[in-house]
């Protein structure tokens, strides 16, 4: 089984035609579906939050079968992710794409659940704690993109589930969660 680092790839990754955009509608739909899932799984596994179209990722080419996805193909798949809320273009020229294997609202729910399960209601955590502290090690939150985290926290703040406040230094923001 082909592996990308320690990530196990699905069978279609080793089948050459999947690297060419298919003209027939049903076949194309299947192809897009498979690549969408793979991109999300891979990014989640490798904690990749941003994909740059001009960069190379092991995900988009397979040296064993000597095939790689064209720019156009990558755009098609990323656009499909954008359409269903699992990605966002970060720039007008669509060169950088933010990958949201969990959408912002899903991240917010995840954080809330994490807080409840670990009894962190009414306690204060710094944003950095959440991103790289001991408590979040082994969870999806470890290594989360700062921008994504802040957006999720702000969503919780809007719902009255959290309060963000500035700490002693510029990058020492804290969060207090309420049950």
């Amino acid at each position, binding site marked *: 089984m*082909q592996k990308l680092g320690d990530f196990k790839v699905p069978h279609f990754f080793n*089948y050459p*035609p999947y690297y060419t955009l298919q003209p027939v509608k049903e*076949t194309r739909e299947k192809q897009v579906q498979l690549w969408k899932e793979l991109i999300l799984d891979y990014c989640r596994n490798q904690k990749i939050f941003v994909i740059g179209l001009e960069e190379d990722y092991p995900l988009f080419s397979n040296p*064993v079968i*000597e*095939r790689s996805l064209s720019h156009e193909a990558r755009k098609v798949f990323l656009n499909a992710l954008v359409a269903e809320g699992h990605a966002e273009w970060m720039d007008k020229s669509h060169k950088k794409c933010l990958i949201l294997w969990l959408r912002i609202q899903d991240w917010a729910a995840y954080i809330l659940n994490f807080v409840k399960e670990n009894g962190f209601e009414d306690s204060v955590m710094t944003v950095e704690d959440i991103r790289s502290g001991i408590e979040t090690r082994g969870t999806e939150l470890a290594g989360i993109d700062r921008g994504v985290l802040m957006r999720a926290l702000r969503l919780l703040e809007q719902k009255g589930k959290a309060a963000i406040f500035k700490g002693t230094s510029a990058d020492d923001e804290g969060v207090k969660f309420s049950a």
Partner: protein
Amino acid sequence: MRRRPGISGLQSAAAARDQYRLVGENVAKIRTDLMKEQLATFRSQLEEFARKHKNDIRKNPTFRTQFHEMCAKVGVDPLASNKGFWAELLGIGDFYYELGVQIVEICLATRSHNGGLINLQELCSLLCQRRKTAREAVSEDDCLRAISKLKVLGSGFEVITVGKKKLVRSVPTELNKDHNEILEVAQAQGYVTVEEIEKTHSWPSGRAIDALETLLEEGLAMIDDGHRDGKRRYWFPCVAPISAALGAEGLRSSS
């Protein structure tokens, strides 16, 4: 019998013919009776055998095939009726019904990948993977039997032979001779090029493309423009199971 001249001779001949005919009919009757008796004995012995070896028949695909062949020889079809003696004794009516349902499910699940045409070998292996928890192994022969039962129900399933392989078709797509030939060529490497088809078949230009385009439209083929030689390849998922797409290179580099 010596022929005697004259009318009485003719009468004797007629009487003799009648006699022979009666004897002949008798013999035929005796033979039939004998055969019926032998058949009845054989049938009851077969039933006894089935009772005794019920578990083996259930568990062992090779044994099961041989059992079916024995049954066929005496004109017994254990699958003919789900309510019949055989079905109740062996419960194998249910076994094939269950297989049939699973086969339909697998064909539906893989249809978007292979267009409704799947290699019998691949189908069988997917079926086995699916039934890992069941204690009964499944052979290609079992698959074919289950599919033939499906056909009787008018479900549109068909087994076609292309070259050396058997493919199971679960969509009404009719394949003509040109399509079949292309599939056969594809069996070698899993794909074909227009050039290759035109060369090996001396077809006028356009004929290969037409056939390939139809196969593409039906979802039976996928295009591949990524090879460095720049030639378009048409891949056929139904002749090369996706897990075999790696070929020799895969074996070398898989870790």
